[in-house]
């Protein structure tokens, strides 16, 4: 084996061009595969960083037909009765304001209904987690802070536990510090603080309502209990709740999924598709290298014949050649890993998608082991066919020199390999094409508002300084007035939430005069907005009127609804003048005064959903987002926006200022990420397939020089010879395209749920990528074809 290795290294050094080419092709394949595998491993496969993570479950209270759902806090309390689970806890995200520790800061917060750390089996760095007494309504405010907050804002004070922090204007006792290794929920930004859900007024208010389904619920399987048993028991509790509380729960059922599955589910298909794509690229790289080795094998026939003549058996020759392949792949693997370090950083940086744990993905020992295995397997995969082909030669004939150079079996193998490369490339191009068209379609979606030249900022009002509706409404009015007076701002408005910002709010409602069945799911996206909201956002008024300043807290309650709501709930009728009661602010029935165009609330691909708008002063919230429309470049007004808020209330930290175009762009981030990577892999695959075709044809021309010379001697024109080579290329391309189209039609179906506005078998996409690939085939054939026309016909006069 040592001799084989030594000879392999010597051989590779004697052909640096060949070695470099093979290493480059393989390194690209191995590097790209390693990058995507590391992401798949880090995001999908690696257990969550909690004790016995496989026993953690998510309990979903879903509306029939939905994939995911949240529960109400009273539901969570009832679910705790189950014996098959323990440490049932609900949580939801939000933000709070920290003051008194340097500049006022908005903290990313997780509000909990119980001891989240106990559920997750996560020990604290200091102190303790929440006890039942801490989360009861009316309990003294407590907080568990994250290690980074402890270091940044509390100077890593060893005595922090037992001390207080001013959160939302009230003194909260810090009971614990969570270590840097703990982060939950797992998302792109780290949580700063965990608080009992009743810390804020709105939290306390919602936590008491059976119909406020806003918390995610997790639990740990009880010792000895299985997930199936838990699902059965929790499902039964859900059914009981539906019977006991039909108004809020009749349309709901309780489901159980592994926690990891719930966290990664929405990214599983896209990442699996990318892993498949990159695997296909590696396969093409292997086919290319196998082709190169087959070609080189022809040149080494004499050497191998001498080895055979000297007594080397077939197995010995195969071993020698496989050692060479594996040495090549090992070098390529090392280069590939180096490439993957850069590639992973580039992919993570280019990924604006909120893929959980993506930023923690590393090229670690596990990934390195994968790369090593992949390299070895690759070496064997691409080395096997050339090794066996080379070992089958007739040593006697080869040494006599009577064997003609062209080996029909080798030629056929090469042709099959190249046709396969074309087929796989087509598959990838078709997938990338479909994802690309999806992206284009999403970018063309009418979001229902005019995002250009707008700026938005979230504002959260602490209960202590804005304890009641009048205080909140006053600040809201002062804010809009202040923003309106900023030079360059054309109009300013506010909404409880803004579309596509990731904050959406649903609310149940009832139409006056209609019987309501409990199982009916009458829910709409809801916004409490200022009078200029529709004009500032550019939302088209379809009928009736928009809100005015007169629609204030003293005025009769009114409502504006979306076209879809009007069409769905008032079919064949005029929605204007109808009266609707919403499940918030018991202000009685509201009169519908206007109908506006539909707006995309959370996803561009979603169907229009019912939406309703109420005047903010009539349904005030302790948080809202402001939006301004500017005369020119909105980014230039961002600082002025922040300054205006600080001037109004120095203790009010201004929120993140973003353009609405940023949020619209974020809404296409996931499809853009998938389409970009898939396109990159398809491009690499096509390039490699083109190189493969070039290689096979160039080799074919070299092998057929004599035949071409004879044809030229017999009077063939250069065009005839060119046609000969191009026909061969076209045949290879057509065979590959045929197989690729068949495969693509089957496999792109798996992409269906990632597509928008295009079917998985879209003929335009398939036609376009087929043409593109054929163009690549023709381009790859051009040089060999031109070389063929330059064969000297004198070759025909020379004897073999």
């Amino acid at each position, binding site marked *: 084996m040592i001799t084989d290795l030594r000879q392999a290294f010597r051989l590779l050094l004697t052909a640096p061009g060949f070695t470099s080419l093979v290493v480059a092709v393989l390194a690209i394949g191995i590097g790209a595969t390693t990058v995507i595998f590391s992401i798949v491993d880090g995001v999908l496969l690696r257990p969550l960083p909690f004790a016995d993570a496989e026993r953690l479950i998510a309990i979903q209270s879903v509306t029939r037909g939905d994939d995911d759902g949240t529960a109400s806090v009273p539901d969570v309390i009832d679910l705790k009765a189950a014996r098959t689970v323990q440490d049932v806890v609900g949580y939801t995200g939000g933000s709070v304001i920290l003051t008194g520790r340097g500049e006022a800061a908005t903290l990313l917060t997780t509000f909990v209904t119980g001891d989240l750390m106990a559920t997750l089996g996560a020990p604290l760095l200091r102190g303790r987690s929440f006890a039942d007494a801490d989360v009861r309504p009316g309990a003294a405010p407590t907080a568990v802070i994250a290690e980074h907050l402890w270091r940044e804002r509390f100077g890593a004070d060893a005595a922090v536990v037992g001390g207080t922090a001013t959160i939302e204007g009230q003194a909260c006792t810090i009971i614990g510090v969570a270590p840097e290794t703990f982060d939950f929920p797992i998302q792109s930004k780290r949580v700063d603080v965990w608080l009992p859900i009743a810390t804020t007024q709105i939290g306390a208010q919602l936590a008491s309502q059976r119909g406020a389904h806003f918390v995610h619920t997790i639990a740990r399987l009880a010792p000895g209990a299985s997930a199936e048993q838990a699902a059965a028991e929790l499902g039964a509790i859900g059914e009981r709740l539906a019977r006991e509380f039909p108004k809020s729960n009749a349309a709901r059922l309780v489901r159980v999924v592994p926690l990891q599955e719930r966290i990664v589910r929405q990214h599983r298909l896209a990442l699996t598709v990318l892993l498949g794509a990159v695997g296909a690229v590696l396969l093409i790289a292997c086919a290319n290298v196998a082709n190169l080795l087959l070609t080189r094998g022809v040149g080494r026939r004499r050497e191998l014949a001498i080895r055979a003549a000297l007594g080397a058996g077939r197995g010995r020759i195969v071993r020698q050649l496989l050692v060479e392949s594996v040495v090549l792949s090992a070098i390529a693997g090392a280069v590939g890993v180096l490439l993957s370090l850069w590639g992973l950083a580039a992919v993570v940086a280019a990924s604006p998608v909120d893929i959980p744990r993506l930023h923690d993905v590393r090229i670690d020992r596990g990934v390195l082991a994968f790369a090593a295995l992949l390299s070895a397997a690759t070496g064997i995969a691409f080395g096997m066919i050339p090794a066996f082909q080379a070992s089958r030669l007739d040593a006697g004939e080869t040494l006599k020199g009577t064997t003609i150079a062209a080996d029909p079996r080798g030629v056929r193998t090469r042709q099959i390999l190249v046709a396969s490369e074309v087929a796989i490339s087509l598959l990838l191009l078709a997938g990338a094409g479909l994802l690309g068209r999806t992206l284009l379609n999403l970018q063309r979606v009418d979001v229902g508002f005019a995002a250009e030249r707008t700026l938005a900022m979230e504002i959260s009002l602490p209960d202590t300084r804005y304890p009641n509706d009048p205080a909140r409404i006053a600040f809201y009015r002062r804010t809009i007035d202040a923003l309106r007076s900023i030079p360059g701002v054309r109009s300013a408005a506010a909404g409880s939430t803004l579309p596509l910002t990731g904050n959406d709010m649903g609310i149940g409602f009832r139409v006056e005069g209609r019987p309501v069945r409990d199982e009916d799911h009458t829910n709409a996206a809801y916004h409490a907005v200022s009078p200029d909201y529709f004009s500032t956002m550019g939302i088209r008024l379809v009928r009736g009127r928009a809100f005015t300043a007169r629609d204030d807290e003293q005025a009769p309650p009114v409502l504006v609804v979306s076209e879809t709501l009007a069409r769905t709930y008032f079919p064949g009728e005029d929605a204007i003048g109808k009266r609707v009661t919403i499940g918030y602010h018991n202000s009685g029935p509201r009169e519908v005064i206007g109908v506006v165009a539909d707006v995309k609330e959370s996803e561009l691909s979603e169907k229009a959903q019912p939406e309703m708008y109420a005047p903010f002063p009539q349904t005030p919230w302790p948080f809202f987002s402001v939006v301004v429309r500017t005369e020119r470049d909105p980014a230039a007004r961002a600082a002025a926006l922040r300054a205006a808020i600080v001037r109004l209330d120095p203790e009010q930290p201004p929120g993140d200022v973003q353009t609405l175009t940023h949020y619209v762009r974020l809404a296409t981030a996931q499809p853009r990420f998938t389409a970009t990577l898939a396109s990159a892999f398809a491009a690499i695959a096509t390039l490699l397939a083109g190189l493969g075709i070039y290689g096979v044809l160039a080799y074919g021309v070299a092998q057929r020089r004599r035949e071409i010379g*004879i*044809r030229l*001697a017999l*009077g063939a*024109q250069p065009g005839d010879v060119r046609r000969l080579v191009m026909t061969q290329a076209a045949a290879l391309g057509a065979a590959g395209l045929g197989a690729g189209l068949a495969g693509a039609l089957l496999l792109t179906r798996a992409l269906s749920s990632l597509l928008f506005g295009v079917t998985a078998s879209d003929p335009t996409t398939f036609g376009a990528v087929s043409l593109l690939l054929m163009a690549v085939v023709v381009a790859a054939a051009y040089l060999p074809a031109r070389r063929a026309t330059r064969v000297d016909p*004198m070759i025909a*006069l020379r004897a073999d």
Partner: protein
Amino acid sequence: MAENGQPLIKLDGVTKVFFTDEVETHALSGIHLQIDKGEYVSIAGPSGCGKSTLLSILGLLDSPTEGQYFLNGRPVAELPASERARVRNREIGFIFQSFNLIGDLTVFENVELPLTYRGMKSAERRQRVEAALERVGMAHRAKHLPSQLSGGQQQRVAVARAVAGEPLILLADEPTGNLDSRSGEAVMDLLRELHRGGATICMVTHDPRYARHADRSIHVFDGRVVEEQTEMAVTE
């Protein structure tokens, strides 16, 4: 003589020099040669004397460094590549020492090959190929691949390919060089028969037995024509 009163082939002071780095190799030096229509000429000489170079110039596979080449009264030495290919295809029939049949094509397709380059219609091609194969006695092997034939049979197919296009002249390069004596004789008989039928043949050979089949034998040495013998002298 050709129909226009000119010799079918006329070489006038043809010289061929190969240049490699700093070395000049004079393969042919001032060759003067005429071949009339219907003549059977053999070119003989030792290895490296320039026979093959001469044949390649006659077959328009190569061009002279100096001198003139008239084919059927028309100067052809300076023709562009595409026109040379056209002339090769229509006016010259090649018979090679190593047969040069294309292994992937059947006997029929091999004979048909030069006709396809003329853009000839399929029916006419078929007729000509069948006639040519009939003429060399290989019609029954039309569907075979070259590898299924003996050397002598392959050369007969090569002859059929050369005559199928009804060229002005047949150029044969050592046509028996790769054959046993019996097959060689059979091929020579075939050429003689073609000659009797009116074909003009120019054959390179170093075998005096076969040179005798020709009307005239030209001896080349060191790139020059050193001797010409007529049929009588050859026979003696």
